[in-house]
């Protein structure tokens, strides 16, 4: 449909915008900010908080700027006396049903309602305070705390859970003043289809949905002289931690982050990228072996397409939603859990430490990783493989608590062993990254040559399209892999669970055929994870993604199989990929769960 230009006036200033533009966006073009609460650019417009109301000349009622499109000749006032009075009233009303215990709130200082209350100088409460003891706090999940006393019912979380993630663990229940955001039969989040992805946390304007924090436990471990603390940092943390510490989005701060972790007192600062590379070795080998079983052995039990298994949100989703596809999931543990299993075995042995003296901590862009670390499957070292998982946000808090001047920190290198990484490991943090890293290695194993893409950047798998496809033809295979000669490896990538559901439904319907599927639960992949700095938007995620790809380009080694420490661990400890020891420590299986 062709777009027409619409002429209107906002605060007496004429402007022409494309037909269909909302008043909110038109005002933004003129640099008038209209405050919002329920609006989020990643989500459909709900228009329910009414904070964004503006006055339209000729209309008695005020209109919601986020929801109403511009029309020809419209005259809008974003700051009239009527608008200000209405807005202040609405903020006061929201506060009257909000537990305004701000100083004790986890979101203190990063709360959109608090900012608005400050901006409008809301004084003594004009209205009675509704918040009584009737609200429940659901803190049973190891990942997410849901505190209804803070909830302002903007439904951003519901839209996130339904639209972006198609999980629908959160829904609106009851009506009138009893309306609340609830789960199936009001069960705790840990008992329903919640994938712990934490996308709701990223979009909650207040402190109603927050991550469960393990900061104090980690400080205790650091301060315990009998414990050896090992910390691993996920790929996506290094390009986002800056946002917690006063940087703009998209800054690569790996060296400073490592320096900060050392100053915080961790005994050893290591890299999840190392086990990302190891994942490629294990998962690549698994894929090739599945292809061999399918193409050469004609094994009817082998399941193709194989899907990735690094995203714990995706794992929980498939357990609930597509349990019949669990055999398609790679048996590889996620890099975090591979790292945990090796920290208390291989690392302990190399360093002459006892496993029980090691406290294994991970810094993750993710809340689902907290749940993953708690899984019974994740104790193959004989102990809890990863003791505590902190989000990027929690690391930001630690750095602030310790009074570290982050900006002035020197660049520091990761410790050894398990601190070496490659560009392939880094791009695990972006959607398509696992696929790209796997193709770089698998192609070279099979053909003896580098992937045929400029500077080994496999651009077709990159980007922010919800579902992407790529095909790589295998030609000139080495003798050992001759059965793959001429095979066009067909891959698909999905990020955000709504896209994952679409992709899996297409697979289920038989309309599409792939060999390998990468799924990351969060929009943009880990860089848009539920543990990343708030706020989030497509623009911010794009910046983090380009930082990740810059990081890759700047690495000396960019292929997982060339990681020297990866080679070393196979020689010294694991034997061969998918070998016996790998299977004990690095692989697992998941189980079907309920549908609600």
């Amino acid at each position, binding site marked *: 449909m062709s777009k027409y230009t619409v002429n209107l006036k906002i605060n007496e200033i004429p402007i022409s915008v494309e037909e269909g533009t909302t008043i909110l966006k038109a005002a933004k073009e003129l640099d008038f900010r209209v405050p919002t609460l329920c609006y989020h650019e990643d989500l459909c417009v709900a*228009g329910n908080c009414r904070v964004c109301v503006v006055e339209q000349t000729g209309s008695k009622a005020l209109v919601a700027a986020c929801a109403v499109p511009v029309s020809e000749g419209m005259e809008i006032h974003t700051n009239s006396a009527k608008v200000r009075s209405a807005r202040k009233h609405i903020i006061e009303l*929201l506060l009257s049903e909000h537990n305004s215990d701000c100083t004790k709130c986890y979101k203190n200082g990063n709360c959109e309602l608090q900012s608005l209350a400050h901006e409008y100088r809301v004084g003594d409460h004009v209205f009675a305070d509704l918040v009584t003891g009737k609200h429940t706090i659901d803190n049973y999940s190891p990942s997410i705390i849901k505190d209804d006393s803070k909830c302002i019912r903007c439904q951003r979380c519901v839209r996130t859970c339904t639209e972006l993630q198609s999980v629908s663990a959160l829904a609106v229940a009851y009506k009138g003043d009893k*309306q609340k955001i609830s789960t199936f039969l009001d069960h705790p989040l840990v008992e329903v289809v919640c994938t712990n992805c934490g996308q709701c946390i990223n979009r909650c304007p207040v402190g109603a949905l927050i991550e469960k924090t393990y900061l104090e436990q980690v400080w205790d471990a650091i301060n315990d002289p009998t414990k050896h603390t090992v910390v691993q940092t996920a790929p996506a943390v290094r390009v986002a931690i800056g946002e917690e510490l006063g940087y703009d989005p998209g800054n690569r701060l790996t060296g400073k982050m490592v320096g900060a972790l050392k100053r915080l007192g961790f005994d050893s600062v290591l890299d999840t990228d190392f086990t990302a590379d190891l994942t490629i070795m294990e998962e690549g080998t698994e894929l090739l072996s599945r292809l061999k079983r399918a193409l050469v052995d004609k094994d009817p039990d082998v399941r193709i397409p194989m899907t990735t298994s690094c995203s714990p949100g995706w794992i929980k989703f498939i357990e609930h939603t597509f349990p019949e596809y669990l055999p398609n999931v790679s048996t590889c543990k996620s890099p975090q859990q591979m790292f945990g299993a090796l920290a208390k075995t291989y690392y302990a042995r190399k360093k002459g430490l006892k496993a029980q003296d090691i406290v294994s901590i991970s810094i993750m862009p993710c809340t689902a990783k907290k749940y993953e670390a708690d899984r019974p499957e994740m104790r193959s070292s004989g102990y809890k493989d990863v003791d505590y998982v902190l989000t990027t946000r929690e690391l930001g808090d630690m750095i602030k608590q310790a009074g570290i001047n982050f900006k002035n920190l020197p660049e520091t290198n990761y410790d050894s062993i398990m601190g070496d990484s490659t560009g392939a490991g880094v791009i695990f943090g972006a959607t398509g990254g696992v696929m790209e890293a796997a193709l770089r290695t698998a192609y070279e194993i099979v053909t003896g040559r580098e992937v045929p893409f400029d500077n080994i950047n496999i651009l077709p798998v990159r980007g922010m399209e919800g579902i992407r496809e790529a095909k790589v033809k295998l030609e000139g295979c080495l003798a050992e892999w001759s059965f793959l000669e001429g095979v066009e490896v067909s891959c698909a990538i999905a990020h955000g669970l709504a896209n994952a559901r679409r992709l899996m439904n297409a697979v289920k319907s038989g309309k599409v055929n792939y060999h390998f599927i990468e799924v990351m639960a969060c929009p943009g992949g880990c860089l848009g994870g539920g543990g990343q700095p708030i706020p989030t938007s497509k623009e911010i995620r794009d910046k983090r993604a380009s930082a990740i790809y810059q990081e890759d380009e700047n690495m000396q080694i960019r292929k997982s199989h060339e990681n020297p420490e990866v080679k070393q661990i196979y020689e010294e400890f694991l034997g061969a990929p998918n070998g016996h020891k790998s299977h004990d420590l690095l692989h697992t299986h998941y189980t079907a769960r309920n549908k609600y």
Partner: protein
Amino acid sequence: MQLRVALRNCGFIDPESIDDAIARDAYAALAKVLVELKPAEAIEILKESGLRGRGGGGFPTGLKWEIASKNEADQKYVVCNADEGDPGAFMDRSILEGDPHTVLEAMAINGYCIGASKGLIYIRAEYPLAIERLKIAIRQAREYGLLGKDIFGSGFDFDIELRYGAGAFVCGEETALIHSMEGERGEPTFKPPFPAESGFLGKPTNVNNVESYANIPVIYLKGADWFHSIGTGKSKGTKVFALAGKINNVGLIEVPMGTTLREVIFEIGGGIIDGKKFKAVQTGGPSGGCLTEKHLDIPIDYDNLIESGSMMGSGGMIVMDEDDCMVSMAKFYLDFTVEESCGKCSPCRIGNKRLYEMLDTITKGKGSLEDLDRLRNLCEVVKDTSLCGLGQTSPNPILSTMDNFHEEYIAHLSDKRCPSGQCKDLMNYVIDPENCVGCTACGRVCPVGAITGEKKEIHSIDTAICIKCGACEEKCKFNAISVK
């Protein structure tokens, strides 16, 4: 004085017999429209008639159809809104129970005019008899070929299904109604897009109320001019009202637009019970306002009611006499909206609750005069900022009682007195020593032992214990107990 158009067949036919209905011209209008008229011509007739939506909004029905007819789509829907939810209103129920075929016929005409082959009736599950009769009517109409394929050989196909609501008031709002029919939560969404553009399952949908539909077949049979000749300037035809409250003749009435409140209440309604003094009448249900003595001679139509600070609504009329407290009346309606708000938008969910709390404070004698300004300001904000019609009108009962009965609010606030003696917290039962003979009857009936006094001596009531049940006052034969 009454003129039955929408209710023309109710009580005159066996609602379970299509032959009875046909004997009184049912489906004749459909035949005429299908055989003689093009959709645009039929819409033009409806526009000329001046019919406006009877569900409350008063939007011109013909214009609504025209808009829906112009939106191109592979599938369109016609929806009958039978989610009657105003307290005390039962106009739609009576039509559905008494003359279901007129609604089916009008929906089929609607389908033909806008190009829809499917009709849905959204009816609350609390109307089991209406549902039963609709089912029978639909079955009979299908048997007679009046619903289904190629109706009257015109090539036009149309069929109707029922959808049940759970009786949420907000589902009378058309976007909420559509969401409820889709199996979603019955919450409104902002307009645009209007249902005529994107409604049920994202397709163009025309939603009309039961009473609006009941008028339509007659318009085609008797002509737009006939319909247009009834009523006032911009309000044509008749309106059904549900008379309730302190009135001698309660029940449904149907009068031409322009009839005065005085005619309705004192002639048709037979005046106030026990000859008490008329105080006010609430029209428009929880969204409307109260009208008083000074409004009695205003001709009732859409525009006059709005100008007087109330609205037509779906046709509820609750009459109040001198014993009714207007602050309590407003509180009653707010209690209803607090319960019935879907909770989606903040001004309606929280604002109405706060308004209720403020009124509650006033009726308990705990308010101050400053509350009046706060009350009015919040009313305006809830009206101006709410997402749908429910919140945009819910403060009306407060605003109109504040305008018409300002002195009652003042009495509650500054004198801590309820002039009608309705607010329990503001009244005390006292024994008049002049009249008390010491018969002990009151003491024996008091359930909490608040009354003391020896035989043949003057009794007294301990106000700290008294629960203000009024049993003593009823029992006393000597008029010695009264409310002060």
